[in-house]
């Protein structure tokens, strides 16, 4: 069994939940952590994070952070984390449209990056919210 902590700057979202497997959005692609995984410190990109316990899945949307795995403990530190049940799909859709429209125009580099991140986040949110 794995133990999971998910911590954001403003609260501990998940505190010591147990799971059989955890999937993380690593920078080089999805990483699946199972029991006995070697120690790992990885950056995370915007994407879905899922963990499975007794066939039940919990999904989260994560934006930039990182994760540490050791002794069958998974610690996720990320700026914003939302559980799929909290996500408002229509809001995510409108956020996607807004970001897409903004990206059509001419933007400074930092604004462009910002909008692109927003777009990514909106897409991830929609993907996991059902």
């Amino acid at each position: 069994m794995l133990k999971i902590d998910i911590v954001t700057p403003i609260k501990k979202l998940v505190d010591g939940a147990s799971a059989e497997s955890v999937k993380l959005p690593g920078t080089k692609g999805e990483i699946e952590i199972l029991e006995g995984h070697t120690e790992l410190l990885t950056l995370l990109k915007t994407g879905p994070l899922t963990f499975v316990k007794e066939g039940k899945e919990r999904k989260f949307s994560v934006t930039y952070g990182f994760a540490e795995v050791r002794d069958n403990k998974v610690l996720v530190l990320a700026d914003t984390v939302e559980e799929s049940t909290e996500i408002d799909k229509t809001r995510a859709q409108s956020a996607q449209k807004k970001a897409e429209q903004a990206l059509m125009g001419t933007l400074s580099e930092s604004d462009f990056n910002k909008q692109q991140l927003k777009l990514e986040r909106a897409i991830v949110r929609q993907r996991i919210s059902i």
Partner: protein
Amino acid sequence: MADRKEIRKRIGSVQNTRQITRAMKMVAAAKLRRSQEAILNTRPFAYRIYSILLSLFKREGIQHPLLVVREEKKVRLIVVAGDRGLCGSFNASVFKEAQRFIKAKQSEGVEVSLDVIGKKAHDFFKKRHPISTYHEGLLGKVTYAKASAIANQILNAYLKEEFDAIYLVYNEFKSAIQQNVTVERLIPVSTKVPEGVVGILKVGEDERFKNYIFEPSKEEILNDIVPKHFYMQFFRCVLESVASEHGARMSAMENASKNASEMIEDLTLLYNKARQAAITKELMEIVGGVEATK
């Protein structure tokens, strides 16, 4: 003897004031509780980031531009005060410390530029010292997103070498009735383990990263963590300042309510004396009148 009507009016107005100060105290107390919680909630994240940062730096010896101390020619001071007054010496003591800091740096030939947070800080410094940026609208509701955006802006200026260090002066939150004005250097990041958190940071530090896989690499992870640590520090300082403000306002309003109560007591005594004197006078007149008709 003072005019009774006059005294009654004064009692009424002091009572009104007391009502206001009492209400303000209650509001401050409620807000204080919430902001204390907010500080506690940042701790798990902040400690873990810092412990990973220290481990990477100490055990792995990885360098990062934000950890390197440059010679100070220009520094940036972030002044965190409040938007509002009526909170005792909360704002004034920050300004005093900031001015002391500026003077001390200037006497060493170091230029100081200011970033201010809080309307009061802006009002105070705009006539006294050039302000580089006034960050408005953070204090209404402090969120990590807003705080990290401001911190990022300041950090970018540092990376462009507009200045060589970032200091921050704020009211450190000790308890509801105690606030300490503190100056902290946020950048370059101090790699000395602070007292009090040693226990948390030491856990497993020795063998910490022996067999670790780093993805994408140690350097890139550190690149990500060091700015984040700065954002968290900045966020924490602002939250502590906000909690201190509520604490200071609570004690100031508590005192004001107490003073008002004392004043009401004194005035009531005065009013009763005046009333008694008037009654005595009237009685004397009646007795005198009866006496005269005999």
